[in-house]
């Protein structure tokens, strides 16, 4: 067993939660940039997942995402997080235009017994990279957001989770009759994240 740990990459619950919540941070930034929710010039380029990624430099948005991430990793470590949804809404009307849906499946055995799994960082990175590429390329088929938009993040947790002080219960902010596109998924062997984007179906184009 000792010789195996030397050669294989061990992933713990804590490590997996860190990878997943970090992924959400970058994915949220990428969506906000690519969908033009915030002005292009408020983003700065960094290298991540072997890709140039854009991170917001706006203090308000930065703070929001980092608060979100710390809460998400807490839930991920407890295995209580089922899904994270980034919702893009019209600023004027509040109508939901896009939902970026990240469903999470947690390996409960790891949560309960504290065992670890094996998967190389490189492999996980490659899977995340594929998702990030898909997010960046999604602008080619998603409808244009030609009005000012705002975003919100919804976390679907288990029922037994106590609502943290800074959070409130929300409605699911669903889109009626949406179009859906499934993107790649990634798996840390502890958390499996499926990505799906649903958007308002505009039948005027037909």
């Amino acid at each position, binding site marked *: 067993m000792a010789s195996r740990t030397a050669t294989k990459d061990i992933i713990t619950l804590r490590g997996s939660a860190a990878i997943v919540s970090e992924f959400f941070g970058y994915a949220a930034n990428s969506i906000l940039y690519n969908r033009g929710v915030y002005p292009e010039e408020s983003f700065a380029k960094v290298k991540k997942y072997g890709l140039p990624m854009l991170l917001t430099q706006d203090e*308000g*948005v930065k703070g929001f995402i980092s608060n979100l991430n710390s809460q998400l990793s807490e839930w991920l470590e407890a295995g209580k997080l089922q899904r994270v949804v980034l919702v893009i809404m019209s600023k004027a009307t509040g109508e939901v235009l896009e939902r970026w849906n990240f469903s999470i499946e947690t390996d409960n055995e790891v949560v309960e017994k504290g065992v670890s799994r094996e998967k190389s960082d490189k492999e996980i990175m490659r899977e995340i990279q594929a998702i990030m590429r898909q997010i960046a390329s999604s602008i080619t088929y998603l409808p244009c957001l030609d009005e*000012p938009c*705002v975003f919100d993040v919804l976390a*679907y947790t288990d029922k037994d989770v106590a609502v943290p002080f800074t959070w409130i219960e929300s409605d699911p902010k669903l889109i009626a009759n949406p179009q859906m596109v499934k993107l790649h998924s990634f798996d840390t062997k502890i958390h499996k994240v499926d990505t799906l984007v649903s958007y308002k179906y505009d039948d005027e184009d037909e």
Partner: protein
Amino acid sequence: MEAETPSEGLITPSPSPSSSSSSIKRRCLCPVQKTLFRRKTSRENVIFKTLLDRFIPNRSAMDFDYAHYMLTEGRKVEENPKSTETYTSPSKQAYRKVLAETFNMNRSRILAFKNKAPTPVDLFPTGYLSADTATTTSDLQKPVKPRRSIPQSSERTLDAPDILDDFYLNLLDWGSSNVLSIALGNTIYLWDASNGAASELVTIDDEDGPVTSVRWAPDGRHIAVGLNNSDVQLWDSTSERKLRTLKGIHQMRVGSLDWNNHILTTGGMDGQINNNDVRVRSHLIGTYRGHHQEVCGLKWSDSGQQLASGGNDNLVHIWDRSSCNSQTAQWLHRLENHTAAVKALAWCPFQANLLASGGGGGDQCVKFWNTHTGALLNSIDTGSQVCALLWNKNERELLSAHGFSQNQLTLWKYPAMSKLAKLRGHTSRVLFMAQSPDGCTVASAAGDETLRFWNVFGTPATTKPAQKKTPEPFAHFSRIR
């Protein structure tokens, strides 16, 4: 939980078994579930699950807690190496997963931050935001100019009794000192636009009158008055005193006047255009000969280098400043495209060598000329007699005054020549127009004996940034030398 197999017992399921078992007991009321329950007690767990997949009897009869428990238990059994027998096909697994997801919808809390992320507008000015959605770089550079609302009715109406309803005269002018002069019959009235005070400057004797043209000198103090008896008088508006009378320069009435610094150019019914140096005793310094009927339009360009003249002979002439003091001056260009008398002439304030001219009732066209080459650039049929033309000093717009049938003022976008506004109010042809010194307000006098003021060219506050734009950043690079 009677049905628990030993292998399942090893795993602690997330919902407590006792609550599930109580729900199962409740479920016994439903006959289908009862059967299932019995089967479960007699058969293997896995088979039961397979059957459950086939039985979604109806939604109202489903207990999500129970279903979730069974599903999550089922997954554990699969993952458990002790029950390696795989009874479920991949499609069934997928189906179960979807089912589980659907059930989870009802078993989860949806949470959101109380404090929302800042909205984009809180951080960036709206102009920035609209530029954000713009795709082209040119859109990014210039923020979208807000649309100016153009009042459709006149701001103010004054009576102008006894105004001569004569197309060929020029009886209205607005001086640089913000005083309006209007000739009504034999009398010239001054109306101070800054305080609304009206005063009578002079009443001409009956045998000399009526007044056929008025024109402020660039200083806004002196005023030239053309008379029916071919005389031209110079008046000082502040002292209300006549300075001199220019006699014998025309044989007939003087219907058009314009100033070029100290040179007063007069156009007469005799077809002559005379240049007068008002400072010297022998004032007549030169004559432009080209028209053979009444000269009704005279306008020096802003640079003072070219004079445009329009006549009842349907001609427009462009004259050069350098030849103004010779007796045998030849026109620079003779523009013969109009088919009626040309009174309306306007030099473009933002493009040198661009002249707009409007034809009378038989022509009804506004034509644009390059006065450097004499080329006709554009011609627009307005559908009505063109009595006067004015350029907006702040925007690329042109205002035209019309006669029958609508007696309206029309605002045009240049160079697209799309109609921006139609200002109605006059009940007879709009003969004369004058622009306020700040370029915003237009006064129009019509045959209905009214003088109306229109706030058509915007307010000074909004026009200031537009003026700043005029110096082009690379203008000095693109000059061809």
